[in-house]
């Protein structure tokens, strides 16, 4: 069965970011129907039954997350859209925001309706200037046409949305750090429990969902849970997915395919294969730089949550980064270690001190001042960080260090042995 692109069906149309184009292609029909015919709890069930799992990186079942909201309504509920896309290798949310904002917005309104909230926040990373302007315009259009504000489409449901700009901090993509930032503070992740569904924004029950997740809610409302669950690899890995491919490929880009598409198919058919014919695949990170790396020999794998977990890595944000034989793995790890050291919020001991330490060791290794024991030391630092931090940033640095060193141990030891990078000059290439 040929796969019908649904998430990206509008993006190539001229004016796709405007509401007229969106309405003309049948947009907001799902919302209209749901508001008229479907109680919020039923929509929650529909999303549960679809099998939709969060598209931000954790892959947590969306309907189940919504179900964690307390039954009592003594405090307002909030929906926060996580548009802080900052995981290296990931650029799919940007695509939706810039090219089909209404697909996202309809999903936001539907989700807010489902969780019975009256105020939603769109937290967008500060660097997305174009995305901010585009989405702001889209929100204005939605208000003007009665899809936001009071008594939406005559349903009696009210919803307002506020767009909030981040200011340059990867950690604010973590749910509770996002909330802290939204409250006007330093983006420090909170201790959990309590979880946001119970104690979230301003202490009130809050759901945080990724942009792509919410776009999928639009599709589920439009076509039903059964349709959604038939795509991909049911029952646990359902739906269409946006996959990002970057690095040493001919055609880096966002590609829509069902969950479970083979990685090699994405690489060779969608992205045109390796960028340089004389430099074969060496390694790939399937889900953003935080996920464990796969050597070429293990890249024959299906791109869904459970298959990649079984392969010892993770789908994450589906930000696939491809590295060819010209890549020095020590330099590559050093590059992303610097990312994590720069982005560590600094709140808790293992991450704050460990990320800086890892960079220092890798720097020495790469410039030829590494010692034999540095390789084992790196691995042990990763062990001491993983599981001991306030938030998953600890895993985000520990997993790459652990997997690069395990998978390419020879290369790391060679740097120490030789007192130089075997692939001089000392850049990633």
């Amino acid at each position, binding site marked *: 069965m040929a796969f019908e692109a649904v998430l990206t069906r509008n993006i190539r149309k001229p004016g796709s970011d405007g509401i007229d184009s969106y309405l003309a292609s049948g947009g907001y029909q799902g919302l209209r129907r749901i508001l008229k015919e479907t109680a919020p709890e039923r929509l929650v069930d529909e999303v549960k039954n679809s099998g939709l799992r969060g598209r931000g990186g954790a892959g947590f079942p969306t309907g189940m997350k919504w179900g964690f909201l307390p039954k009592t309504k003594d405090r307002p509920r909030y929906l926060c859209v996580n548009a802080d896309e900052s995981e290296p290798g990931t650029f799919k949310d940007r695509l939706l925001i810039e090219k089909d904002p209404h697909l996202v917005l309809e999903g936001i309104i539907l989700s807010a309706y489902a969780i019975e909230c009256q105020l939603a926040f769109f937290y967008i990373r500060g660097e997305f200037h174009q995305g901010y302007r585009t989405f702001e315009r889209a929100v204005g259009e939605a208000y003007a046409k009665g899809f936001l504000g009071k008594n939406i489409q005559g349903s009696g449901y009210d919803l307002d949305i506020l767009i909030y700009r981040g200011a340059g*901090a990867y*950690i604010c993509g973590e749910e509770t750090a996002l909330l802290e930032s939204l409250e006007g503070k*330093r983006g420090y992740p909170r*201790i959990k429990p309590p979880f946001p569904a119970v104690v979230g924004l301003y202490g009130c029950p809050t759901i945080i969902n990724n942009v792509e997740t919410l776009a999928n809610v639009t599709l589920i409302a439009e076509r039903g849970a059964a349709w959604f669950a038939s795509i991909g690899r049911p029952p646990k890995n359902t739906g269409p997915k946006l996959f990002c491919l970057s690095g040493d490929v001919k055609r880096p880009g966002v590609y829509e395919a069902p969950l479970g598409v083979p990685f090699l198919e994405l690489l060779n058919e969608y992205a045109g294969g390796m960028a340089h014919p004389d430099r074969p695949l060496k390694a790939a990170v399937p889900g953003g730089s935080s996920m464990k790396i796969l050597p070429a020999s293990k890249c024959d794998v299906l791109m869904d949550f459970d298959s990649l977990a079984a392969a010892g890595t993770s789908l994450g944000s589906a930000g696939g980064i491809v590295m060819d034989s010209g890549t020095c793995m020590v330099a590559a790890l050093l590059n992303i270690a610097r990312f994590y*050291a*720069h*982005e*560590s*919020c*600094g*709140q*808790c*001991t*293992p991450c*704050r*001190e*460990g*990320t*800086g*330490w890892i960079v*220092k*060791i890798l720097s*020495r290794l790469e410039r030829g001042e590494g*010692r034999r*024991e540095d390789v084992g*030391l790196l691995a042990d630092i990763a062990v*001491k960080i993983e*599981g*001991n*931090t*306030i938030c998953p940033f600890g895993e985000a640095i520990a997993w790459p260090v652990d997997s690069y060193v395990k998978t390419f141990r020879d290369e790391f030891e060679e740097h120490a042995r030789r007192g130089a990078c075997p692939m001089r000059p000392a850049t990633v290439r």
Partner: protein
Amino acid sequence: MDDTSPPPHSPNLPRPPAGAAGAAPQPGPDEVALVIDDRPVVVKKGTTVLQAAEKAGLLVPHYCYHPGLSIAGNCRMCLVEIEKVPKLQIGCATVVAPGMVVRTGNERVRTVRAGIQEFLLINHPLDCPICDQAGECRLQSYEKDYGRGVSRFVDEKVHSPKRYDIGRSVVFDGERCIKCTRCIRFCDEISESHELALFQRGDHAIIGTFPGKPLDNPYSGCTVDVCPVGALTWKPFRFKSRVWFLKNVPSVCAGCARGCNVYLAAFRNRLHRMTPRANPDVNAYWMCDAGRQSYAALYERPRLERPVVRPSAAAWDAAFDRAAELLRGVAKSRGAGALAGIVSARLSVEDLHVSRKVLGDLAGISRLAVPPHEDGADDELLIRRDKTPNARGARLIGVGGPSAGRVKEIVDDVAAGRVRGLVVVGEDLLELPGVTTALLDRLDVLIVIDWWKSPTVERAHVAFPACGYGEFEGTMVNFQGRVQRLRAGVRPAGEADPVWRILRDLGRRFDLTSEYATPAAIFDEVAATVPAFRGLSYKVLGETGAPAAEAVAGEAYAGGAPAVGGAGLAGSIAPAGS
């Protein structure tokens, strides 16, 4: 557990012998039963694992947790294993659940702890030999108990602003800081002055202030108390003494009517610092900067070290005899009404009891006045406008509370020549309104008992050297009506003696028969004769004091919790389960 005293760091206690525990206690309706390191423990609902472990006699090491501050959970030192939970959990933030099984010292936990220690030390400067915190430093103590003792870090450490005045009296060393945020939380939650914040992120994160707005609140010294390492140090104490040489004596501050519980720390018979001692009913874990430095006056003013019979030093007996003679002389020639006494509310209950006995009953001085010393206002936390520590005690003991009116009466009578003889105990008259040297010169007899060579002492016909703060034992009654014990941290300078003993020996010249051998004995007499002190004794008072009984003339006890507004103090008392 007292979290501010120089911590006697105690490693985990030995396990109780098998079988000794017997049947596990049953939890009540508001309680939870759990097991920690094979010890059954029952605590109130809402208690954290760390607090429950404390109750079971186990120390879970921690840096950022402080019972008087909100939970931060950032140091990760208190990670413990909870059965059926895959990841280790921080004990400070995990609330106990029925049937929970916790392990605080197995190999997995100890390995992680050693890891945390290593991380904390990689950018920490090797300052121990020059750092004041050595000996009461958590990083040091925990490294000894939980660390591997070696570091695998061979790179350049992160450097930070080091050793600068972050406030009037607080020095900050950014390199020693472990970013536990206790100091920030203190300034936000307790002093509510918000001068401190964290700047930047990652391993460059650093505590700081806004330019031009230093750490300047009246409780800034408490940030030094809560700092687990030597990042924040108290300027007057820097390099003065190694803490393991200090002898700590529990006492009470005499800077105002709050009577914050303190430790006096002395080395070689010299007081080097005062630090707060936890008392949930009086001062929680805190004290103000003025109080913290209040011992310093002992060394800043010239001491009166020997009795004086003007113009020269004299022997005690000679001085007592002369004083008695002078007082009798005035009484005889002008009548007892020509004598008056000024006694201080800075004196102890014992001092004041003997004052009333000797001066009032025996020497015939019917008028005793207590000068008020008020400054500023009561703040929302600890500071009282009344700067005397025992005003309430003076009232209860029958000497009368501070009264500007009564003092003025006496002063006016001196000016008018109706009062010819004055006994002054513990006050510098020239500080009082309307008192001039000329006025003092009108007196025929001026007897002074004080600890320093005040201008009043200089004009006395007979002067007796008294103990200063920190040199005497006794009790005082704070503004709440709480009776608290003071202890001496140092021996008195020169020949100085406690006020009660000086007055006792003067009293012998007036046929005083009471033995008054010790302050405890005097207090026992007070307890037997003064209704407000009924049922009390030094033993009953213990280290944290006790309320005076419902007393006469509306002097009821002002309640158990400190009378403060806002979340400031009330929220900082150790929570349920402790």
